[in-house]
């Protein structure tokens, strides 16, 4: 076994915690209105029983996620299973779920209703942009009209679809745009109409995906009823080998706990390896907690976080950290120095295998892109492999930078050890298709004219986050999820390839 995962149940409190874990149970005590006043439209707010910690004399240990939700719900103490009304710091929506959210907001709050806070809603067109699909184009119009009507402060518009560079406001993939534009801040609560909103947990933010109806509610009220999730703790220690990326770590973890292993749970990533990761790599880690069913994932904020945030936000924020004696549902430990490059085989993100075990799998194409695999460092990593090999790719290789900023980086930042070449130059020499306009694109199929959509039942190695049937466009397509090291190495050989073949 390459990994050592030790689910530990050392904490005597675990039994107690688990007993309150039913998704349907409520440990909250509310003042109930009696029959006689049932018609009264506004009654008392929820009153929690006064817990000892309210007095300040007793401090009860909490996890980071519990603390963030406690702050946001104005409670002194929360335990897993508590249902609380949480004040939302940022609500994000995009062109796929924005129109439905707006529809619900207007239906329920009125045609002339105003959003709860025009500065706390971020609207990002990113899914179906570069398409002639009329309904997709209309949906971008809907979110634009709404943003103008409501004077939404952060709306990242695109009008000229023929040339994304002519749209200075356009960003691209929402989760990376949120980070790059300073909307991800430690200790805050971010909700988004996209399951990969959990990406922002990299900043020590509570971030999770919600549906249109919940988002419509948040749009009008700034609040949402959330259940406090218990936390699984992942301790990653050891020096990261130079052939691994955070994608290998999270695929390793999902393979360990399964696609439902963190359902209704929070995942906290700590340890010396995590501390050494860049913000983009931490995002890769947190982005895919939802592939294990997780509600959110968090990495404690540190100097790396603050450095990234410099110049991106002027807002004050208050990082939260798990108390030393906080209760975790279980703890998993990994010695990262012993891990090997992995892939997730079709058709499930937990279908883990070592990349080298799949060396006989012939592939038809490679895709490098998306919120989890289309960041600047993902392209730098691919370029590093192409550079080291000096060879040309054997299969069509599609490159879709997540955002306009990533696109610029790909075309301007010199790759170390290349004598000043940029990623784009290295990709061109390697015979890749030129980096395309930033958007979610082929990661989720989308309209039939989407660039790099899988329209044939092909075998694809992809740096994206899902490989369920049909994900990239064709139901019988086969998707192998991998790091961009492994994706680039596989592009060179035409077979799934362990990147150590080129990096050592």
């Amino acid at each position, binding site marked *: 076994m390459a990994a050592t995962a030790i689910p530990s149940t050392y904490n005597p409190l675990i039994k107690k915690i688990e007993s309150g874990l039913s998704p349907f149970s409520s440990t909250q005590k509310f003042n109930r209105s009696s029959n006689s006043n049932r018609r009264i439209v506004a009654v008392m707010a929820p009153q929690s029983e006064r817990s000892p910690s309210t007095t300040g004399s007793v401090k009860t240990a909490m996890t980071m996620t519990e603390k963030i939700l406690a702050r946001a719900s104005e409670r002194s103490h929360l335990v897993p299973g508590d249902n609380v009304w949480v004040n939302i710091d940022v609500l994000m929506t995009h062109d796929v779920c924005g129109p439905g959210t707006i529809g619900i907001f207007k239906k329920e709050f009125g045609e002339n209703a105003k959003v709860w806070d025009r500065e706390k809603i971020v609207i990002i067109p990113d899914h179906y942009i570069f398409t002639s699909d009329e309904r997709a184009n209309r949906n971008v119009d809907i979110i634009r009209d709404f943003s103008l009507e409501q004077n939404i402060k952060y709306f990242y518009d695109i009008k000229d679809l023929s040339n994304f560079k002519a749209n200075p406001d356009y960003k691209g993939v929402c989760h990376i745009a949120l980070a790059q534009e300073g909307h991800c801040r430690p200790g805050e609560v971010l909700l988004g109409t996209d399951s990969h909103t959990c990406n922002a947990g990299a900043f020590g933010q509570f971030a999770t995906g919600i549906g249109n109806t919940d988002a419509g509610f948040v749009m009008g009220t700034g609040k949402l009823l959330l259940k406090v999730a218990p936390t699984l703790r992942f301790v990653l220690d050891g020096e990261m080998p130079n052939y691994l990326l955070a994608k290998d770590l999270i695929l390793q973890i999902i393979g360990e706990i399964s696609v439902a292993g963190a359902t209704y749970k929070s995942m906290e990533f700590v340890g010396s390896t995590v501390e050494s990761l860049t913000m983009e790599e931490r995002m890769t880690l947190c982005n895919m907690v939802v592939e294990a069913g997780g509600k959110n994932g968090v990495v404690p904020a540190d100097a790396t976080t603050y450095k990234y945030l410099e110049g991106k936000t002027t807002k004050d924020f208050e990082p939260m950290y798990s108390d030393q004696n906080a209760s975790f549902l279980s703890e998993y430990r990994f010695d990262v120095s012993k891990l090997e490059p992995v892939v997730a085989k079709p058709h499930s993100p937990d279908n883990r295998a070592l990349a080298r075990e799949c060396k006989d799998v012939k592939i038809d194409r490679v895709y490098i892109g998306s919120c989890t695999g289309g960041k600047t460092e993902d392209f730098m990593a691919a370029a590093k492999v192409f550079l080291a090999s000096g060879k040309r790719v054997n299969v069509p290789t599609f490159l879709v930078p997540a955002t306009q900023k990533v696109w610029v980086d790909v075309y301007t930042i010199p790759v170390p050890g290349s004598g000043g070449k940029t990623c784009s130059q290295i990709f061109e020499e390697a015979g890749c298709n030129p980096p395309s306009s930033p958007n979610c694109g082929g990661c989720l*199929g989308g309209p039939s004219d989407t660039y790099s959509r899988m329209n044939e039942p092909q075998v694809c190695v992809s740096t994206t986050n899902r490989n369920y049937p049909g994900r990239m466009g064709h139901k019988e397509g086969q998707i192998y999820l991998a790091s961009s090291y492994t994706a680039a190495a596989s592009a060179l050989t035409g077979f799934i390839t362990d990147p150590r073949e080129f990096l050592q």
Partner: protein
Amino acid sequence: MLRLPGMATAAPAASSLSHATIIPPQPHPKPSSTTTLSFRSISRAATKFPFKLPSSYPSPLRRLSATHNNNISSSSPPPATTFHGLCYVVSDNIDTDQIIPAEHLTLVPSNPDEYRKLGSFALIGLPSAYPIRFVDPGEFQSKYSIIIAGDNFGCGSSREHAPVALGASGVKAVVAESYARIFFRNSVATGEVYPLESEVRVCDECNTGDVVTVELAENLLINHTTGKEYRLKPIGDAGPVIEAGGIFAYARQTGMISSSPVSA
């Protein structure tokens, strides 16, 4: 305008929940006990969950004369909701791309025409391992009103289009071993389908086309074709929210928010 005093004020950051006049969702009595809930929009609930027998209703089903009891006054016990029909059986980890592929996400669920269209595409993303189509070509609704599934139904995306597509296609309930969290929540928030959990794995013992009944109050799934019965886990507090038609409708019914939908 929806009135949530203390919520929609000009200074939301400063508005303290403890001063807000919101009634939280009330702990709901178990189905066996009596309820104090008043159902103001009975007609809506009745149209939403009509009790209909499939045309292929076979003979051994006499015991199913149990009806969808929505004829209740405001002081009656909760409706003994019964769903009856043909089931469609799927396995584990049916993700949202299989329920509604991403190419159809240009349809906006809050638009009535597009809502219907979403129904026509329900489960169209299932691979060829599922030879029987869930919705026949050219149809907007499925002949299967109950889905039986394995573990982790609805995993993947947060797209609300998923429970909406199922609801629009005529699905009343899903009976799965377990659910992905966001799908479960979206099912409740929209009131589109009942996401029910079975105590044991049912999907291996049922076949698509079996005639089944879900007795909500009794937490029971009956497969009339095989003659087997299965215990379901109680839906709990989520039940009344779905019954009402989603969180907004529930909040109005219970007085948590005051006004009617503005443009309904």
